[in-house]
């Protein structure tokens, strides 16, 4: 058992401040519904790219906090990115991993080693400064502000229930190309 995706996203939205947030896969629509912002960027069409897209922004803008809302299947597709991120060592980088153990978009086939995989251990092994795992929304809400005050890179694994809220965000549509320009303008003040 874990927490509802929406509960975790609401907590992150509450504390995002002026962070740039990169979302991917199943969190894209709920995130946009819960936290609309010119600082939202979406990774669509190149699965696994969210973490390094965030890394690029974090390195370009060390004055700005960057949060990546990743999926477990997505991260596995570019697992080497945790070594790349660790090597670049961005202090302003928080990596949230929504772990539900399946490829939800394609019909919820289990990810490889879904019963045994430990992403927090992998992040620590790659050299992240810290890694946390939460399966309880209350505890996550409580600890999140302190975690966001820590220097990155930090991985925060969020164990998510498969049965999720089906709400208004199903109709949300995003255009990642437009978003990239919007975020760029917001960051560059143009």
């Amino acid at each position, binding site marked *: 058992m874990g927490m509802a995706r929406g509960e975790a996203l609401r907590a992150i939205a509450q504390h995002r401040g002026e962070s740039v947030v990169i979302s991917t896969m199943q969190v894209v629509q709920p995130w946009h519904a819960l936290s609309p912002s010119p600082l939202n960027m979406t990774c669509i069409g190149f699965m696994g*790219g969210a973490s390094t897209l965030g890394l690029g*922004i*974090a*390195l*370009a803008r060390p004055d700005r906090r960057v949060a990546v809302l990743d999926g477990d299947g997505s991260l596995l597709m570019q697992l080497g990115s945790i070594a*790349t991120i660790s090597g670049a060592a961005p202090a302003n980088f928080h990596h949230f991993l929504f772990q539900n153990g399946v490829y939800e978009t394609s019909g919820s086939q289990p990810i490889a080693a879904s019963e045994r995989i430990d992403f927090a251990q992998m992040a620590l092994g790659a050299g992240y400064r810290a890694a946390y795992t939460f399966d309880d929304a209350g505890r996550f809400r409580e600890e999140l502000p302190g975690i966001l005050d820590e220097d990155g890179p930090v991985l925060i694994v969020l164990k998510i229930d498969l049965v999720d809220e089906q709400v208004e965000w199903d109709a949300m549509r995003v255009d990642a*190309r437009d978003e990239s320009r919007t*975020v*760029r303008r917001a960051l560059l003040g143009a």
Partner: protein
Amino acid sequence: MTLPARSVPAQMLLDKLRRCGVRFVVSVPDTHQKSLLALLDGVRDIRTITCCTEDEALCVAMGMWIGGAPCAVMIQHAGLYACVNHLRGVGLDLKAPLFMLIGLLGRDVDKPPRENSGSMVRLAEPLLDTLGIRHYLVDGPEDVHLIEPAYRESLSGELPVAVLIGAATA
């Protein structure tokens, strides 16, 4: 094109990257351009970010563009083949200005790349053509002048542009 292709000194390439205003080189290390990578190791004004895959390198480069940090991607032809979907998604669909230096490792320098017997060299230009990606061939010091306009073209057109390095850098 004057054959055989000749090595370009790494310092000459570094000077061009500086002229472009590049602050980051995002790389999956390329044997063909190793002298340039070695030179970059010792400079302070351009930071090299080493990635595990070319997919990652393209995403980092796009993120840097969003954040306003000029960068160049340095990869090898094998990496070009490996990252086709990300190149399509990031470069063509999202229209990220990806400026790429791509080494043609193993090229027979007496022949144009398209006439090389090895598929890795022979297919690089046709693949870029298929994707509709502009590319330029640097086959010696006399071609280095192509680099800065190629970089500007990528930036102003918001599109991927490739510079193929024809002979191993010196």
